[in-house]
């Protein structure tokens, strides 16, 4: 839930990157961290295993600039994608303002993608959110790999509602900022509605 601070004239919003294990959530944040100028970002925190799998979350605070005299700050979080970390994923979703679903384009990962979207929907429901009503975009990552499924197939399987989608190669930054901007835009538009 966004936090509007009239005292410091700031607005804080929480974006969660969701998706199956190894789909590239952490890589998205790492690219943003590495390519954002110093003033606009805080420290990136990664609570990870020794093999660099996310254990609890990654966290990256970003400032995007001002709207009507309010500084807009976005807190980016990733969840751990591995199936058995479900309890942690639920915790990270608390207070979320918008979700980026990072799908792994590889054909072999299609089951995992589908399972993860379903898991996202269920976990949001437990918190009283409806995935169809909150700001939500989808990123098809790993487009560079030879075994990547055709876009159309991914769309059919993972995006029946036709939400905004982006093709990405996260380590190269392709599609990374486009995705971030899209979700930030949806969140701000939602705030405008004042729901």
């Amino acid at each position, binding site marked *: 839930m966004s936090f509007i601070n009239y*005292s410091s004239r700031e607005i*804080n919003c929480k974006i969660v990157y969701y998706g199956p294990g190894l789909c590239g959530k952490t890589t998205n944040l790492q690219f943003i961290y590495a390519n954002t100028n110093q003033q606009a970002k805080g420290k990136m925190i990664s609570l990870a295993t020794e093999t660099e799998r996310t254990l609890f979350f990654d*966290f990256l605070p970003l400032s995007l*600039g*001002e709207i009507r005299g309010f500084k*807009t700050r976005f807190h980016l979080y990733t969840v751990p994608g591995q199936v058995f970390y479900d309890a942690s994923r639920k915790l990270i979703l608390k207070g979320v303002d918008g979700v980026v679903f990072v799908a792994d384009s590889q054909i072999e990962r299609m089951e995992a993608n589908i399972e993860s979207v379903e898991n996202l929907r269920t976990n949001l429901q437990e918190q009283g959110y409806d995935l169809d009503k909150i700001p939500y975009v989808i990123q098809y990552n790993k487009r560079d790999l030879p075994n990547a499924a055709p876009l159309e197939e991914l769309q059919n399987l993972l995006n029946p509602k036709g939400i905004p989608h982006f093709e990405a190669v996260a380590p190269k930054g392709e599609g990374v900022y486009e995705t971030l901007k899209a979700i930030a*835009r949806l969140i701000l538009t939602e705030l405008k509605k004042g729901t």
Partner: protein
Amino acid sequence: MQPQMVMYDEEFQQISAVCERLAREANAKIVFLVDKNGQLIASVGATENLDTTSLASLTAGNIAATGGLAKLIGEKEFSILFHEGEKDNLHISIIGGRVILVVIFDSRSSLGLVRLRVKKASDELNKIFDGLMKKVQVPGAGSPFAEITDDDIDNLFSE
């Protein structure tokens, strides 16, 4: 879903005053308040060389994780956590089920003193947050963003 979190100048001043007094009376180095989603509300004390944004996010993560543990063993939540370090200690408590109060202190203070002062400050903070919530629920306390245009949003990304 949680209610929209809002902070106004009046309450911010009151909250900061309570935190400052707590820091003084408990001989603490740093006192800060975080909402359960990890957003920093206020911080006082020797915070110059401290990454308070990271601190806020990790504190909330910590509370979320121990809250999850509590539920597993049939507790509602653990309302107080204490971490003891070689020099500095962390006292973390949940206020009114919604905000997290963190006190960092060293050997110039003691757990007993911190506990005592935190208790008093918690009651005061609770009242302030109660008032804040009521203010927020009043209709017409609308978002300042109701007026923004698509252009405003575009401009944010053009820089």
